[in-house]
């Protein structure tokens, strides 16, 4: 039964990866990677029960924390980059205008 759940989760992760590769904007990619991280956490938990290595739940815990931190960091990076570009454009237009 764990194997069936792990298989379903694997399918879902594959579909999410397709979206991450195809996503038109960077936010689609971030969303897909975030969801991939969530399903990885579930996958690690299920696999730890499947192989009777229940210490792996600690790994799932740490992975959830790291995935969240990574998502927020990338979002902040994108936001700051966007902000800087907008500021530069505003500066250029101010120089052009009399």
């Amino acid at each position, binding site marked *: *039964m764990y194997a069936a759940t792990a298989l*379903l989760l694997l399918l879902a992760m594959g579909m999410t990866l397709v979206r991450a590769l195809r996503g038109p904007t960077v*936010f689609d990619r971030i969303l897909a990677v*975030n*969801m991939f991280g*969530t399903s990885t956490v*579930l996958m690690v938990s299920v696999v730890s029960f499947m192989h009777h290595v229940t210490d792996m739940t600690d790994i*799932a*815990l740490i992975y959830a924390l790291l995935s969240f931190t990574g998502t927020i960091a990338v*979002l902040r990076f994108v936001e700051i980059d966007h902000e800087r570009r907008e500021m530069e454009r505003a500066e250029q237009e101010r120089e052009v205008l009399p």
Partner: protein
Amino acid sequence: MSLLLDVLSWVLLLSGGLLSIVSAFGVLRLPELFQRMHSATILDTLGAGLVLSGLILQAGFTVISFKLFLVFLLLALTTTTAAHALAKSALADGIYPKGIDPEVVRAGLSEGLPGRQRIATDRARERVAPPASPQEDPPPQPSEEGGPPWA
């Protein structure tokens, strides 16, 4: 009793897996960013809750089930925060949900932002809908000879 618990946890695990498939299909096929976010939420809350509660039923009353509960709590806190940040960032970048008046979104968005971010938001707004060109003629001056002619 043990068989009952097993069957219950199997049902929970399988429905969690099916919900993850549904969620991933929505993320793959829905046409718009915000609809995809809605679909991703299914896995983050209900899918994770079902799978983890199925595992908790298998683990019984142990430290491991407490850890799994902790994983669920962490996921419930972090994915909502990440979704909030993602939606805010996308809105500030000028991506708006279809069928919603953009003015409403912008008014709510630029309210609590610090100055530089507000400027970036205003620039994004102008890119989406350029503002009406300002009028060239000056506003009418009040006449010197008392009131208007119809007074």
